[in-house]
């Protein structure tokens, strides 16, 4: 995975958030930094194998996941359960991963996808997990979102 790939992953994430969840996002302000992550945050991971093995992940605030779920269901975030919000976060990463691999993989590539996993972890541990991996921090309508590549 080249360093350019993280830019592709970040761009894909922004595009999917807009088209799928109707949320606007972009790179976080380099000077100001992103809004703080919630504590605990959710660490969402999706592994793939096949033409290339690896994974993608994200650290997301529960409030943002709730907003994604609410937008998908056409309801209010307060009416969304934790289970629905976690499901929405996993499906979001699923879509991002599929589009990302389509852009960076060879045309004839074939991948098998594991089921995405969503862990509730302390903010520091979530950010630490992504530490040292190619990563990008985004700001999505006042919510922080960190995306990263494994392997």
């Amino acid at each position, binding site marked *: 995975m080249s360093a350019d790939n993280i830019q592709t992953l970040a761009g894909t994430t922004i595009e*999917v958030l807009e*088209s*799928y969840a109707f949320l606007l996002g972009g790179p976080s302000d380099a000077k100001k930094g992103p809004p703080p992550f919630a504590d605990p945050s959710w660490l969402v991971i999706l592994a793939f194998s096949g033409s290339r093995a690896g994974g993608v992940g994200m650290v997301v605030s529960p409030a943002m996941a709730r907003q994604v*779920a609410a937008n*998908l*269901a*056409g309801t209010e975030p307060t009416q969304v359960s934790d*289970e*629905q919000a976690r*499901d*929405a976060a*996993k*499906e979001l990463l*699923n*879509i991002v*991963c*599929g*589009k990302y*691999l*389509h852009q960076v*993989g060879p*045309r*004839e*590539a*074939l*991948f*098998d*996808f594991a*089921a995405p996993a969503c862990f509730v972890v302390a903010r520091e541990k979530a950010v630490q997990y992504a530490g040292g991996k190619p990563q990008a921090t985004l700001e999505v309508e006042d919510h922080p979102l960190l995306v990263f590549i494994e392997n």
Partner: protein
Amino acid sequence: MAYNILIVDDSLMARTFIARALEMAGLSLSQLHQATNGQEALDLLQREWVDLVLTDINMPDMNGDELVRRMRATDLLKSIPVVIVSTDCSERRMAEMTAAGVQGYLTKPVTPEDLKATVERLLGKGSQ
């Protein structure tokens, strides 16, 4: 004619999104069934009349590939059109699924326009 459509996906939010997209597409729906995997879908297809199946590929217990194979091997079900709705955009996967007997392949996030075009291509234009 109003359509009976079955959505198969292990993600509740994915099923919700597709159901909303079908409504937004203005399609005439008689019944909208949902299943969380291939096995549940097969069980439902034994007791409910369905005009079209929209299914994900990667699911626990029985995935979309196997669901399509089982449907194509069952007299009662082999003529029901199946459309894949998946995050997997690879050309090889699309070719594999087409060879397995699916009639359409949509990548997530699916749009109401794409759904409408696909459903009407396969089932004809419905009416309220």
